[in-house]
């Protein structure tokens, strides 16, 4: 049964993979509108806000019936504007899961779980991929004085070789700290003075020191980056972070929605941060195990959060389970023995990418180093070249459909771990003349705790409420009418009992938005 579903999803993915390149914003919007229009019972879309660049931030809700009453997963893409894959994975999930929604298992899933999808949090920045001048932009359209000198955008990148891409420039210099990679002269690596190595090149981003302050490209169009604008360890005053946390409309719109979405128990985002390939937290290692199994991705580069990031916000400040993955990275290449290649003597991401991409038959991703005349280095040799922007963090588009399928499977299967409150072992004992003791076990059947560890004492998390309702002909002689519990660990129970005088129906309710609510009626 399961297999058939995934086969079906795979088939649909295949059918929808006509596109040859990442979707522009207009294409993203069209895909979202199309899929929502096709499944109006299961999906709605709304624009949460327009960015300063006038771009919509879309939110898709997928679920059945009263979606706000069911435990939910938030899925976020475009966490970084240069990571085009993120939006593809989120929109791809919407397409895949809705197209498979005729199957029993997806029907059951959407009865039980709500998905809130935010495909692209960086629409101002991601459009740079399609612009005339391509560079990896993460900042939105907000004007920023990145070097805080009182002048706006006075030193942007400059396309010195006129190829429409911002790459690197290497300058021959006696104080250079880079040298050529011993196995691939197209790549440069840092010279290690402790090993007696001497550098030959300065390595800078492509451009001119337009404002003659000794720095290159330090204040271009800039903007505020969504993944630096968050409230957790915000790096106030640093480029792209903003003068204060959550300064941007799109950041606040997402926070505002999520803070009021008490039913969200997990946030899964796509961006440079990765806590799914390796996860130190025992409470959630089942989730990363599932990810590694389903995605089949290996050898993930270590990442560390930088402050103001969304992954940390969702865990530390929104106090929900929070997971993030780049969704893809350049695989470790193997030397092609047929070509008499040898293993690299020095590990280097650029050299690795060049070898891997060649083996994949990917062409036109490297600009050969070419000498140019540079106004700031009139008597030095300056060459412009290097790997294209975007290609190190976004796979060739033809791989996206398969990645989308795998991530859809992950997002479906992870819902099986959802915390779930249930009532069990209901017992009534008659004590004496119309006096009854009612006992019940409240259990969390899920594989995740009902609340993450920071959820105590927080306005924005609802506690587990266990309440007994008696009629006005009955009275509660023993036990508490309402009890609030901060958390229930997975596969645990708590027992409660009440003494009630009087006959007739009583109701016991237990639950919370992140784990669902159950109730039972008991006749005394």
């Amino acid at each position, binding site marked *: 049964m399961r297999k058939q579903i995934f086969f079906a999803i795979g088939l649909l993915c295949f059918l929808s993979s006509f596109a040859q390149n990442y979707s522009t914003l207009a294409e993203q919007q069209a895909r979202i509108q199309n899929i929502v229009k096709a499944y109006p019972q299961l999906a709605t879309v709304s624009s949460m806000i327009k960015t300063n660049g006038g771009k919509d931030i879309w939110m898709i809700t997928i679920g059945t019936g009263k979606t706000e009453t069911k435990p939910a997963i938030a899925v976020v893409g475009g966490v970084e504007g240069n990571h085009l894959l993120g939006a593809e994975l989120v929109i791809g999930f919407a397409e895949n899961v809705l197209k498979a929604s005729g199957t029993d298992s997806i029907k059951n899933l959407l009865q039980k779980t709500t998905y809130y999808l935010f495909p692209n949090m960086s629409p101002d920045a991601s459009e740079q991929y399609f612009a005339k001048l391509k560079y990896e932009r993460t900042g939105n359209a907000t004007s920023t004085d990145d070097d805080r*000198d*009182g002048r706006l955008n006075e030193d942007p990148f400059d396309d010195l070789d006129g190829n429409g891409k911002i790459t690197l420039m290497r300058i021959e210099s006696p104080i250079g700290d880079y040298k050529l990679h011993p196995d691939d002269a197209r790549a440069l690596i840092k010279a290690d003075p402790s090993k007696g190595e001497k550098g030959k090149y300065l390595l800078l981003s492509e451009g001119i020191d337009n404002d003659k302050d000794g720095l290159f490209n330090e204040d271009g169009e800039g903007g505020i980056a969504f993944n630096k604008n968050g*409230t957790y360890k915000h790096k*106030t005053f640093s480029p792209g972070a903003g003068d*204060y946390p*959550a*300064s941007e409309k799109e*950041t606040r719109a997402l926070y505002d929605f999520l803070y009021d979405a008490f039913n969200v128990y997990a946030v899964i985002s796509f961006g440079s941060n990765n806590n799914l390939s390796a996860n130190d937290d025992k409470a959630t290692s089942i989730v990363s195990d599932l990810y590694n199994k389903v995605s089949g991705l290996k050898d993930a580069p270590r990442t560390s959060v930088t402050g103001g990031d969304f992954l940390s916000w969702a865990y530390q400040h929104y106090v929900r389970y929070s997971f993030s993955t780049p969704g893809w990275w350049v695989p470790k290449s193997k030397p092609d023995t047929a070509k008499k290649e040898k293993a690299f003597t020095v590990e280097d991401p650029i050299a690795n990418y060049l070898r891997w991409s060649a083996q994949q038959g990917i062409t036109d991703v490297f600009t050969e180093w070419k000498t140019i005349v540079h106004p700031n280095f009139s008597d030095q040799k300056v060459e412009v070249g290097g790997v294209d922007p975007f290609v190190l963090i976004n796979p060739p588009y033809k791989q996206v459909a398969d990645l989308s399928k795998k991530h859809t499977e992950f997002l479906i299967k992870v819902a099986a771990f959802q915390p779930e409150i249930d009532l069990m072992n209901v017992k009534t004992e008659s004590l004496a003349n119309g006096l009854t003791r009612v006992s019940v076990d409240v259990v969390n059947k899920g594989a995740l705790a009902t609340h993450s560890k920071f959820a105590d*004492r927080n306005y924005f998390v609802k506690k587990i409420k266990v309440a007994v309702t008696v009629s006005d002909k009955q009275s509660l002689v023993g036990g*508490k009418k309402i009890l609030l519990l901060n958390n229930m660990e997975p596969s645990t129970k708590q027992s409660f009992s009440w003494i009630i005088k009087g006959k007739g129906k009583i109701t016991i309710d237990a639950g919370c938005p992140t784990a669902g609510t159950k109730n039972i009626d008991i006749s005394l």
Partner: protein
Amino acid sequence: MKKIFIYTIAFFASASAIQVHAQSPEQIFKASGTPANPKVIVTWNRYYDHGGITEICKKIAAAYPDLAKLQSIGKSYDGRDLWCLTITDFKKGVESNKPGMYIDGNIHSNEIQGAEFAMYTAWYLTEAFGDTKFIQELLADKVFYIIPSINPDARDSYMHKPNNSSSPRSGVKPIDNDGDGLVNEDNYDDLDGDSHITLMRRKNPNGRYKVDPRDPRNMIQVGPDEKGDYELLGIEGIDNDGDGKVNEDGYAFEYDPNRDWGWGWQPNYIQNGAYKYPFSIPENRAVMEFVMKHPNIAAAQSFHNAGGMILRGPGGAEDVGTYNAQDVAVYDAIAKKGEELMPGYKYLVVYKDLYSAYGGELDWFYAGRGIYTYSNELWTPYLMFMKESTRDPFDNTSYSFDRYLLFQDAFVPWKEYDHPQYGKIEIGGFKKNFGRAHPGFLLESDAHRNMAFSIYHCYHTPKLSVTSLVEKDLGDGLTEVTAVIANSRIMPTHSSQDVKNKIERPDYITLNTKAKVVAGMLVENADLNLTTEQKNNPGVLEVNNIPGLGTVTLKWIVSGKGPFTITIDSKKGGVVEGDK
């Protein structure tokens, strides 16, 4: 001219039925330091709700169009205007080119007198302007931005709904405080219907309290070998939702507007009272946007109550290093004067002397914007008998003060009540207008002292001038021009936190000349000829800071001859032309 105004006021006064006829000018003898015949008559021994504030602000702006302008900087959650009075001599200079002093009050709803203190400042500056040379000079140089209440919704809630002296602290945006899924389901209950939330006590042979023999209204704890006859049941209320807790989720505490600012912000589970993210409360957002649009604000005061304190940050120990030595010296110099001006007030540091508080307003103003900011905690029990005492309900001072000076107007006498959960109890205690708010007769005097401190604070924002401009013929048609720029006040143009983080752009010092500027440099030491050249755009030299009570020296080499003049353009130090 003056007479016409007075007649007009007299006319309005007689037109309004409640107002008693004002005295005629001949009958008035001026008390020193107080406007004797103000155009805007305000009684400063009582409090005003938002409607009252609105009216006073409008009157001040209407009476003094050349000194006061009124604007709404935004709306509160419930749609009230956040009124801001801009006070300066609009006939002299451009407002945005003058160093600014920002004053607000009432961020905490029950801490009401900040609004009156702020309004008194605006009133005094406008009314005293006519015959006080110091005020004329001050308003020629400086601008005040005065927002009496940055929390008007809950100010009205405090005054018009049942409350005690500590409630509500927050604004009115509803919160589910206890996380049970219901919002404001268990408020205080004004059981005796007097709009004061007081205390509940119950006779109990096992109780650990007794009536205080010094004042029968007071309850005191009995000693270990004593027997009590009362128990205290807490604040007036009922367990409305049957969860076994009384008053745990109501309007009295939703969130804390002073934990909502963009420096060192921490979430709710770390910092109780924090809302969703910095500036997630609409009133604070309006203030933040106003401050961002007014980079000339160099100094700020945010009035709170109570305790008689001149507070500075940091709010958290993590920020001890943020308040670096140079800036602390500025804070110390001004606040020490404040201790002199306001007897009973002590200069303290929040995290060390009070408690840790993250995301407070004064931390954002200082660390986030580089503005030297204090929070005065208005009203101190010291003012009751002009000696050290406490606000502790078990300190007899409050009861004595109420008995002998307020004639028991501040207390609700204990009265029996049949409580649905506690049975036969008694309700009584101090009214909400006592304990934190000034009693009427002390309000004006303390408002004046706090205003004097704000004026001193504002006076010491930078005052820049060109003290020397020397030309030297270097031969070959070249002239060397050296200028010394002085700042004669305590505050630098950039606090050291500002310099460190480049919060505000440098000061621009322009040599105005028709001749060609060949080179420009900052002179570090004129005697030893130490200079640093600015290669780009040498005609406009960029200076990171002009220190308080200090100078900077600049030098230009010009091809040609004078005349030369200087323009100093500093965001927080003002725009000054000089040609000495």
